[in-house]
C-alpha cells in the first residue's frame, strides 16, 4: 500500500504541475471577469517558446537554460494573452469566440515558426530539461520523505507554493479584492474608483503568464520537445480544474492534483493483479469517469464569477 503511495504521489505531482499553473492563470482571468478558453493556446505558446529558446541557447546558458526558458515562456504567454485582452476588454469581443481563436492562432503560429526556425514541423529534444531532485534532509524523513521529497520536480513545489500565494493574493490583498470585484460587479468597482479595464487586463495577462509557464513546464519536464501535438487537451483539462475548483486557487490546485491522482491511479491500477484482466479501456476512461462522479457526487454546483463573460461597457447597466 505504502509502495503504491510512494509511486503515485510523486507522479501525481509532476503530472499536475502544468495543470496547476495553467488553472491558476484561468482562475485569475475568470475572477477578473474574462473567460479564457484560450488557455490551451497559451500553453502551446509557452511550450513552443520555451523549447525554441532552450534549443537555441542551451550552449550559451548551460544548466541555467531551463529556468531562462520558463521565463521566456512567461513573457511569451503574457504577450500572447494581450491579444485576448485587447479583443475582449477593449474591443468587447465575445470571450469564448476569442478564446477559440487564440487556440487556433497559437497552434498555427507555433508550428509555422518551428518550420521557419528549424525547417521542420517538430523540434529535436532539448538538451537542458528540468530534472527532478531529492530534497536534501527532508527526503530522509521516514515515510513522508519518500512520498513527498524523493525525485521531485522543483516545478511541482513551485506550483503548490504558488497556489497558496495566488490564494493569498486573491483573498487577502487589495489587488485580489479588486480582481474579484471587477469580476463580480464591474460597475460597482468602477464607482469605487477602480480601473476596471486595467484590472481585467492584468487578470488576463496573469493568465497568459501562468498558462505560458504551465506549457513550458510540460515541455521542460514531460515532452522535452515541441510539435503540433505536444499540447493536446491539457489546456481544456486546466479549464475543467478551474471550474472543478470553483474558481478558487486552492480548489483549482486540488482539482489538478485530483486529475494527476486519477491518471496515476489508472496507470498503477493496470499492474495490480486484481485489475489485470479488466479491459484496458476501463482504466483509460477511469480518470474522466472519476471526475464526473466526483462532480456529481459531492462537488455539485459551482457558480462562476457573476460578471465573467460580460464585456464591461462604461456607463451601461
Amino acid at each position, binding site marked *: 500500500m505504502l509502495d503504491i503511495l510512494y509511486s503515485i504521489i510523486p507522479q501525481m505531482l509532476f503530472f499536475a504541475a502544468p495543470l496547476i499553473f495553467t488553472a491558476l492563470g484561468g482562475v485569475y482571468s475568470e475572477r477578473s471577469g474574462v473567460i479564457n478558453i484560450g488557455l490551451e493556446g497559451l500553453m502551446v505558446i509557452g511550450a513552443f517558446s520555451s523549447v525554441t529558446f532552450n534549443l537555441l541557447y542551451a550552449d550559451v546558458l548551460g544548466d541555467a537554460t531551463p529556468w531562462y526558458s520558463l521565463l521566456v515562456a512567461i513573457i511569451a504567454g503574457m504577450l500572447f494573452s494581450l491579444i485576448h485582452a485587447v479583443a475582449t476588454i477593449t474591443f468587447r469581443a465575445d470571450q469564448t469566440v476569442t478564446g477559440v481563436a487564440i487556440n487556433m492562432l497559437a497552434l498555427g503560429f507555433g508550428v509555422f515558426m518551428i518550420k521557419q526556425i528549424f525547417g521542420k514541423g517538430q523540434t529535436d529534444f532539448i538538451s537542458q530539461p528540468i530534472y527532478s531532485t531529492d530534497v536534501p534532509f527532508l527526503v530522509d524523513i521516514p515515510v513522508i520523505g519518500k512520498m513527498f521529497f524523493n525525485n521531485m520536480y522543483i516545478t511541482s513545489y513551485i506550483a503548490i507554493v504558488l497556489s497558496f500565494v495566488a490564494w493569498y493574493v486573491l483573498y487577502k490583498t487589495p489587488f485580489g479584492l479588486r480582481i474579484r470585484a471587477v469580476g463580480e460587479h464591474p460597475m460597482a468597482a468602477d464607482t469605487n474608483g477602480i480601473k476596471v479595464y486595467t484590472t481585467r487586463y492584468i487578470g488576463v495577462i496573469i493568465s497568459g503568464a501562468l498558462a505560458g509557464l504551465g506549457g513550458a513546464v510540460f515541455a521542460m519536464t514531460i*515532452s522535452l520537445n515541441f510539435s503540433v*501535438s505536444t499540447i493536446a487537451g491539457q489546456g481544456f483539462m486546466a479549464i475543467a480544474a478551474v471550474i472543478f475548483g470553483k474558481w478558487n486557487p486552492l480548489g483549482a490546485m486540488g482539482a489538478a492534483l485530483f486529475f494527476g491522482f486519477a491518471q496515476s491511479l489508472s496507470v498503477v491500477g493496470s499492474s495490480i493483479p486484481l485489475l489485470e484482466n479488466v479491459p484496458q479501456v476501463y482504466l483509460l476512461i477511469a480518470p474522466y469517469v472519476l471526475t464526473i462522479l466526483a462532480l456529481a457526487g459531492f462537488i455539485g454546483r459551482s457558480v462562476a464569477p457573476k460578471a465573467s463573460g460580460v464585456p464591461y461597457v462604461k456607463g451601461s447597466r
Partner: protein
Amino acid sequence: ACGSGSSSGQGGSGDSFKTAMVTDTGGIDDKSFNQSAWEGLTKFGEDNDLKEKEGYDYLQSNSASDYAGNLNRLVQSNTDLIFGVGFKLAEDIGKVADQNKETHFAIIDSVVEKDNVASIVFEEQQGSFLAGVAAATKSDSGKIGFVGGEESELIKKFEAGYVAGAKSVNKDIEVDVQYAGSFGAPDKGKLIASNMYNSGVDVIYHSAGGTGNGVFAQAKDLKNNNPEGNYWVIGVDRDQYDEGQIGDNNVTLTSMLKAVDVAVARVAQDSKDGEFPGGEIVSFGLKDDGIGIAETNTEAYTDDIKSAVDEWKQKIIDGDVTAPGTADELKAYVDSL
C-alpha cells in the same frame, strides 16, 4: 503490371517518371516514418537525377479528411507512382486506386489487394524479437517493460516479438506490458515509465510515437539523478539514440529500425524500371535489411548483447526461428520454450 510497362516505355528518356507520397498527419519531419519514407524518396530521386517537385514530391495531410484529396491531387498531376505512408491511408488508397487504374500506388504498413497497388509491410516482430533479446540480456533485475501507444494489431506485433525475444533469452523474465491508449500522450508515457522503473524494470521498449517521448523523459530524469542506475529505453522505427542523450550518458540501449526509406526507394526503383510489384505484398524483414537493430550506443550495447542478438538474428534469417506476431503465436512460442 502492363500499365507500368507502357508508361516507362513511353518515357524512354526516363525523365518523365514521377513519384510522390502522401503523408499521414505526421508530416515529413516527424522523425518517424513519414520522414523515413521521404528520405527514401529523396534518395531514389537523387539516384535517378530527378528534381524535387518534378520527379519526386510529397503532400502533407493535416487530418484524415485530407488523404483522399491529396491522393487525387497527385493523380491529377500525372504522378506515376503514389505512396501512401501509413495504414491509415489504406482505405483511401483502395478507393482512389479503383477509380484510377492507370496509376500505380503503394501502401506502407498495410495490405490493399488491388492490381495497381503494391503493399509494403515490415516484419516488425523480427526486430522486436531482437529488441527483446537485447533487453533480456541487458536486464539485471529480470524485469523489463513494454509501452505501447494504442492497443492495435500492429503494435501487438511489436509486443509479441519483444516478449518472445526476451523469453528466449531468459524464460523467467517478467515483462510488464502497458498501453497508453494514445500515440500523443507524453505525460501518460512518463507516468507509465515512472511506474515501471519504480517497480524494478530496467529496460523499456516503447512503440508509442509521441507518448514514447515521456518514456525517454522519465529515463533521462532518473539517469540524471542516478548516473549509475539502469534506466534503459529501446527506441522504435528509427535510431532514437539522440533522444536518449543526457550529458555524457545515453539511455537509448538500442532501437528497432524499420527501414521505410529502403523499402520506398526499392519499390520506386522497381517501378521506374518497369517492375512495379502491383497486387503483391512486398515484405521487408531482417533478411533484406528492411528491419534492423541499432548499435549506435556502443557503451551500453555491449558485446555480449551484440553476440546474443546476432545469434538470434541469424536463426530468424535462416528460418530456424519464427518470431511470433500475435498473442496466439506468442503463446504457442512461449509454450514451446
